[in-house]
């Protein structure tokens, strides 16, 4: 079966800026693929090319089985997109925005109203469907855009920073919708984000992009396990050499470091290791006082591959700024 999204050495230059610099992607049908990278990494540019809005400098790409350059209209009919920046008509009501979209995509009349009802219910906007979008909050707008992107039953859905600038509660809501859509309808999704935890929580597979290049790719747990496993810290009363020796003997423990009043272990699959670690300590005559688990984060992965951090605080400031720009009124 052909991939839902595939690119070959995709390149887009803006003058001297190499926005996309040789990207090879292959996303399977039904997959939820995450594109993670800092500001200016080339995420939006890639999505613009895949959605036929932008011509690449070189390279090839196909979406839903059609070449984006030679068959743009076939691609367009099969994709949905939630843009990074707003794209609603603020003068129209939520429902009118939906109807307009249904007409553009030739959703059959017989299905139109029911589909709109269903989707508005899904994003909890039934009560506000007849208010003008002008009067919507940022989260409501985002949810409406999400519902609109699904109205024509796309095979592939692009989500460009779907939760940028939203509060944690709304963000969680949107995560739920995204998961459900992917599971229940089997929609292939490509999502961009610079929130680590978002990519981690949602995506089957992640591509980390930096300066137009994919620097690492894999499932979130694969990426993190490249870093040598989880860190378990065990605080032991009456610690002695026997405890450390017993732990060293466990097959899944990679390293044991003695600390004052305890040991730090680097293990594979920390969750399943913890009970076994506790048993081993007890058998060696120690008493476990407390135990903690620290998982490596995607940020550690990003650091490993680029030597830099995706600094969350800076991102959030920028995200807020963009959010503000996005919602400035006429």
């Amino acid at each position, binding site marked *: 079966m052909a991939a839902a999204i595939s690119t070959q050495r995709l390149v887009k230059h803006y003058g001297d800026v190499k926005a996309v610099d040789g990207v090879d992607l292959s996303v399977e049908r039904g997959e939820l693929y995450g594109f993670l990278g800092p500001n200016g990494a080339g995420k939006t540019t890639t999505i613009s090319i895949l959605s036929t*809005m932008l011509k690449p400098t070189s390279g090839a790409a196909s979406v839903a089985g059609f070449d984006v350059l030679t068959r743009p209209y076939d691609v*367009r009919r099969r994709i949905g997109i939630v843009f990074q*920046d*707003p794209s609603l008509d603020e*003068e129209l009501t939520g429902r009118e925005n939906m109807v*307009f979209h249904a007409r*553009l*995509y030739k959703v059959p009349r017989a299905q139109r109203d029911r589909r709109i009802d269903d989707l508005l219910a899904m994003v909890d906007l039934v009560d506000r469907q007849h208010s003008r979008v002008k009067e919507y909050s940022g989260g409501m707008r985002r949810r409406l855009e999400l519902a609109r992107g699904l109205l024509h039953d796309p095979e592939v859905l692009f989500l460009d920073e779907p939760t940028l600038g939203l509060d944690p509660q709304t963000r969680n809501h949107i995560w739920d919708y995204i998961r459900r859509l992917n599971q229940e309808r089997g929609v292939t999704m490509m999502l961009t984000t610079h929130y680590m935890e978002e990519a981690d929580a949602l995506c089957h597979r992640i591509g980390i992009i930096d300066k137009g290049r994919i620097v690492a790719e894999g499932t979130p747990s694969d990426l993190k396990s490249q870093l040598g496993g989880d860190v378990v810290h065990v605080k032991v009363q009456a610690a002695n050499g026997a405890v450390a020796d017993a732990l060293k003997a466990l097959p899944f423990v990679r390293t044991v470091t003695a600390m004052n009043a305890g040991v730090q272990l680097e293990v594979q699959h920390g969750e399943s290791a913890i009970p076994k670690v506790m048993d081993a300590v007890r058998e060696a005559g120690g008493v476990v006082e407390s135990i903690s688990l620290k998982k490596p984060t995607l940020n550690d992965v990003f650091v490993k591959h680029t030597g830099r951090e995706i600094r969350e605080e800076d991102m959030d400031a920028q995200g807020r700024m963009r959010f503000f720009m996005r919602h400035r009124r006429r």
Partner: protein
Amino acid sequence: MTIVVDTVTVWNRDMLRFFRRPSRIVTSLVTPLVWMGMFGYGMKYGFARPDGTSPLQFGNYASYLDFTAPGIIAMGMLFTSIFSGMSIIFDRQFGFLKEILVAPVRRISFVFGKSLGGMSTALIQGVTLLVIATLAFDLRFTTGLGFVAGFLLCIGVMAMIGVSIVNLGVAIAAKTESHEVFFLISQFLVMPMFFLSGALYPTKTLPGWFQIVIAFNPMRYGVDALRWAIKGTSELSIFVDVGALLLFTLGTSVMAARFFERS
């Protein structure tokens, strides 16, 4: 076929937006009515001779307002229509244009939908002004066509003015980033188009170079055709007027479609 459907979709959106803001209808009427009231009446009485007759009363024009009202109506439509074209700049700024550009529709249906929408608003404005000018001001239908035929011809001419000027606006908007620049360019175009259209004074006796400039102004034919449809007299043949308007409408349509396609 799908182009027609998409054009109607875009037109429908413009209509929804228009009727949502009744203030827009009112503002589109205010300026022309102020012109008719203040300028028309001012000229009528300001130049009156002691015996009550006026030098601006000539031919079959009962008063200066009777002469100038068709021109003022055309002016009102000119201003409204050029700014209907500008709305695509706002669609771009507010991001809504992306929704249309990524959809499986031809760009040309967007341009057609916009000109249809702009034409509709211009017609609503033009017809309302025509009715008010007839009922409340001195405008008299004296055309040999009779009132109904004259009125219908007015609507046809207004539709051509609407479509062509909206398209002119769309063409400029496709090439300009900001509405400030659009404003500048449109002022530069619209003012001469109004003053050199024969809306305010007859042009037959003007010097030769003036005549040449005026001949290139499409509004000149629109005003002349409106006057013929209402008063039954005009400076040019109605066939020349309508022919020139059709040509201008066609030209601006192609220009708008081309420019937008490439932007």
